[in-house]
């Protein structure tokens, strides 16, 4: 029966709108709450929208979060940690993936299997020894501790190896004939040709590091060393009388990833995820 195509289209539109509301609603509501003036009714949608429609929206909660909450240092820390992790994750993974994809040497398969095997153990299980190692190395409560243990991932090495393996052999041979050694082939042939994969890896590393709470919470203690998620977590206790300041801090934490999402939306290609299914 194909008599009612209109019905199915309507159904799909309803579904699309419902999902949009569910996906965007909670974050939007957090923003609405964060820009409320003091004493407004936040228990109903109409009550919370009223001051905004009357032009009484305020940034004072952001001000309170920024000054009393001291968010500028965590923001800088987050930017440092996140940038460092995106850079090291790409660099170290690409370096490791190159011989795994392109050189013949004894132990290559063993090393690759060992790297993949590390993916089987969740980092949540290893928190305690990782923490003890960080303390033992004298890195506790430093930004280095938030970067080094996660400066490369087995998944990243795997991604890069796949990308390098897809580079045609002739290109490397041509480079070799031109007198290029491993290093120059790596820099001038491999890295540029694997650029789409490398930028995807950088993006994922950035988003992952920016959002992470558990590990920084374990290794960063002093207020001056906290990243944004850790600082927001601390604010929740501190601002129990003015929670809207904590909500404003959360909105500030969300803002950079929103910008990155809009700029990088071309990465939301289905093909990126196709490999997951085909294995």
């Amino acid at each position, binding site marked *: 029966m194909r008599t009612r195509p209109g019905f199915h289209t309507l159904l799909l539109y309803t579904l699309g709108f419902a999902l949009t509301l569910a996906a965007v609603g909670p974050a939007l509501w957090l923003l609405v709450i964060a820009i409320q003036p003091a004493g407004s009714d936040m228990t109903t949608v109409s009550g919370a929208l009223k001051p905004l429609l009357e032009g009484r929206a305020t940034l004072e909660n952001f001000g309170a979060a920024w000054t009393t909450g001291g968010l500028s240092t965590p923001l800088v820390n987050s930017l440092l940690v996140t940038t460092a992790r995106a850079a090291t994750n790409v660099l170290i993974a690409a370096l490791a993936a190159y011989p795994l994809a392109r050189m013949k040497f004894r132990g290559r398969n063993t090393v690759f299997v*060992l790297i993949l095997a590390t993916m089987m153990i969740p980092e949540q299980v290893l928190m305690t020894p990782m923490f003890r190692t960080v303390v033992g190395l004298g890195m506790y409560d430093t930004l280095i501790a938030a970067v080094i243990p996660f400066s490369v991932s087995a998944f990243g090495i795997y991604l890069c190896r796949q990308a390098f393996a897809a580079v045609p052999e002739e290109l490397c041979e041509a480079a070799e004939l031109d007198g290029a050694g491993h290093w120059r082939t790596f820099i001038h042939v491999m890295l540029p040709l694997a650029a789409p994969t490398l930028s995807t890896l950088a993006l994922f590393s950035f988003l992952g590091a920016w959002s992470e709470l558990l590990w920084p919470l374990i290794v960063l203690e002093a207020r001056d060393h906290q990243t944004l998620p850790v600082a927001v977590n601390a604010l929740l206790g501190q601002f129990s009388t003015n929670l809207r300041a904590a909500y404003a801090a959360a909105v500030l934490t969300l803002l950079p990833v929103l910008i990155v999402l809009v700029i990088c939306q071309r990465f939301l290609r289905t093909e990126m995820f196709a490999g997951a299914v085909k294995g």
Partner: protein
Amino acid sequence: MSRRSNAAIPWLYLFPAAVILGTFSIAAAFQVLYYSCTRFNAFTPATFAGLSNYTRALASERFWSCLLNSVLYLAVTPAIIVVSLLAAIAIDAKLRGMAYLRIALFLPVVTPGIVASLAWRVLLDEDSGLINRSLGSLGVPAINWLTEHPFTLVSAMLVTLWKGFGFYMMIFLAGLAGVPASLREAAAIDGAGPFRTFTSVTLPALKPSIALVAVVSSISALKVFEEVFVTLRGVPTNQLTMVPLIYRVAFEEGEYGLASALGLLLFVVVLAFSLINLRMGRANA
């Protein structure tokens, strides 16, 4: 310089990764095994203690309640499959004016866990939250989303579902792109309506994607931290799941030995799911 002149070259490239993964994954795996067999806390160095941490864990009420909560948490998986599949279908329909859908539904995926958990804490607030207020206007009595078991678990699972479905939706979109259009057209020519085509052509073709989403989302449900830790701030320990319990034991109580044993017990459960994943991967290949 000939390409195979120096056997050390590959290892030079591998060196930084080997140091990091060797220290923080491979060595840590052996350490956690060792710690789990020691009496070891923030104040006393490790001394061998056999399996006492395991017997302590298995004899404690909070281990079993948190393990049960983690197992109950797996109920989020079917919800994730349904919602992310529906989302993929809505996007795949390429409706006019709905081009924004993909990025809008991906927003929760990139939202930091602490922000997502806070946003839902506001909505689920027992007195002033929109959800209880809306239920109230329908005559439903207020639900203690943030304090009363098992509603607390449902609340955290809502956040996990919200944060996760956009990611799994992308896997389903990739799966849908792999269903040959000719199959769907053939079904339509045979007189099948959109629903019939979906259930008898599209859904069977999506089986590998569904299996993948089921395993990946189950493993990540077993490892949940932020959604429980932040959304359910302040609940008693026996309402937590495994990872927040391990965090509490290790870093609030300083019991490194016991926390390591708890971690390994969780690992056994996660490993079972990973092995299912591997087996399915092989079956697909």
